[in-house]
């Protein structure tokens, strides 16, 4: 567990349209203990292109973790979630919903589509940092991530 993370950097895909939140997340993750590479896309279509290595993302790595905002232009987060979890080659990648919405319908929809967990962005910036660090520590050092092999 700990030995594996020390060598190979973990690839995180952040799907977020708000540059302010992108910077905050980047800040928080850079500050963290785990070696990671943050990739950012700003809308749902780009997210799918990245995951499918299409268009300008042909060299893109397969992310170990996806942080997904729901409120996105073009294709929204729920649609992206549905596509990821509906795709045999992508569905194993843990998807963490990170959004402002506390609406019950969003929470239900997300879990119904098999989001791995749902987090609401806190108001205070300090709390936001703690949250991102918790995500990092839980998903990247405590949890055993699935291997990259072929889909079953």
């Amino acid at each position: 567990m700990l030995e594996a993370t020390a060598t190979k950097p973990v690839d995180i895909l952040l799907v977020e349209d708000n540059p302010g939140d992108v910077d905050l997340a980047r800040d928080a993750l850079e500050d963290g203990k785990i070696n990671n590479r943050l990739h950012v896309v700003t809308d749902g279509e780009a997210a799918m292109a990245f995951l499918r290595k299409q268009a300008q993302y042909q060299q893109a790595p397969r992310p170990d973790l996806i942080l997904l905002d729901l409120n996105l232009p073009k294709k929204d987060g729920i649609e992206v979630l549905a596509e990821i979890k509906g795709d045999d080659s992508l569905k194993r990648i843990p998807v963490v919903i990170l959004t402002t919405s506390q609406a019950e319908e969003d929470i239900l929809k997300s879990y119904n589509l098999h989001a791995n967990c749902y987090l609401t962005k806190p108001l205070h910036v300090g709390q936001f940092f703690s949250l991102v660090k918790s995500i990092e520590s839980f998903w990247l050092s405590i949890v055993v991530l699935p291997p990259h092999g072929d889909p079953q």
Partner: protein
Amino acid sequence: MVIAAALLFGLLFWVVDGLVDYYKYREHVRFLIFKAPENILDSLFLNVSTPDLFARITLMATCLIAGSLLARLLHRQMESAEALRASEIRYRRLHESMRDAFVQMDMQGRITDCNTAFAQMLGRSMAQLRTMHQEDLTPEMWRALEARIIQEQVVPGGKSDVYEKELIRDDGSILPVELRTFLITDEGGHPMAMWAIVRDISERKRGEREREAALAALKRSNEDLQRFAYVASHDLQEPLRMVSSYTSLLAERYAAQLDDQARKYIRYAVDGALRMQTLIRDLLTLSRVETRGAGLQTVEAGPALNKAIANLKAMIDETGAKISNDPLPRVQADEAQMTAVFQNLMHNSLKFRRATPPHIHVSAAADREAGGWRFAVQDDGIGIDAQYADKIFVIFKRLHTQAEYPGTGIGLALCKRIIERHRGRIWLESVPGQGTTFYFTLPAAPIGD
């Protein structure tokens, strides 16, 4: 009448008898006419033997009695014919003057009779209707239903339940009606004919349609409101987070370059943003009272109060507060909202306390006028000036600065909205410096629950 008939018979006999007598006693009559007798009676009964006389009197009496009996019979016949006719006239008058329409048909559905009301209802003449089949008057889609009702209810049971259908008027327009169909049987109990009382329900139908339309519009409006509230709050939260997050970061990361004044500015900015976020959340909560309100059910007020107390545990412990209550009744309410009301009122009581640990007492009394219960949440806090008694229920209206007592001013507006949703009232009585009692009414639970 009787007497006249009797006399007639008597007279008839007398004449017949006289003729017979004349024939038998014509000699005597001739004698009588030409030679007046000394005694009338003798001349009348001249040479009539006693048995003969006796027979004659008996026969006469018999005829008189028979005559009177026959007369009575005839009279009675005439009387009952009279009565029948009178009753017939009364019935027909009633029939015609009834507002409700009446129609009669044979077992095949051919119309045999109807009243003016029925004819008017359909804009046709009675004569025309008597040539028609009830199917001619009924739109296609109702025929199967009606046939089934006749088969399953009218023929076996003699009458149907009240059912609805439509009739076609002369001008082609459709009239919604409700009716009950009855069966007429002959002496042997076999179905002979059917009749129905038909009522025009177009007013009622229009009312129902209007009500449904209004309900649908209300539902749509509620949904719109909810959507708006959700989108607005969602979209408003993000920019606010940016403002508060980055001003905080500014303060943190550029602390060295900032003086006290700058830090104060930043603090105001951050506070403003945070308060805005809370306000948006509160507005959402308020809008959800209607749109997310559960149906009103029988609820025990005691447990609802206990839940509110549990939710306020931290604050109760912190202030050393003492909460007491009388036994509380069953009400017709949304349980979660009831808990919210108790919680908001008690939260206020705890917040606006005096120096000593606050006492809160919750009680209830029957309120016959309101048809339910009047609850009281009484505290010994700082009290409220009478002139503000109405103002404080207005959303966001506060009586203190944020520095004195923090809060958005939504608690009481929320309580008011919830109580109004339950068709109750909320008000307060207070003595500044001594305490406040908030009163609110809720409907009683139906008996038997």
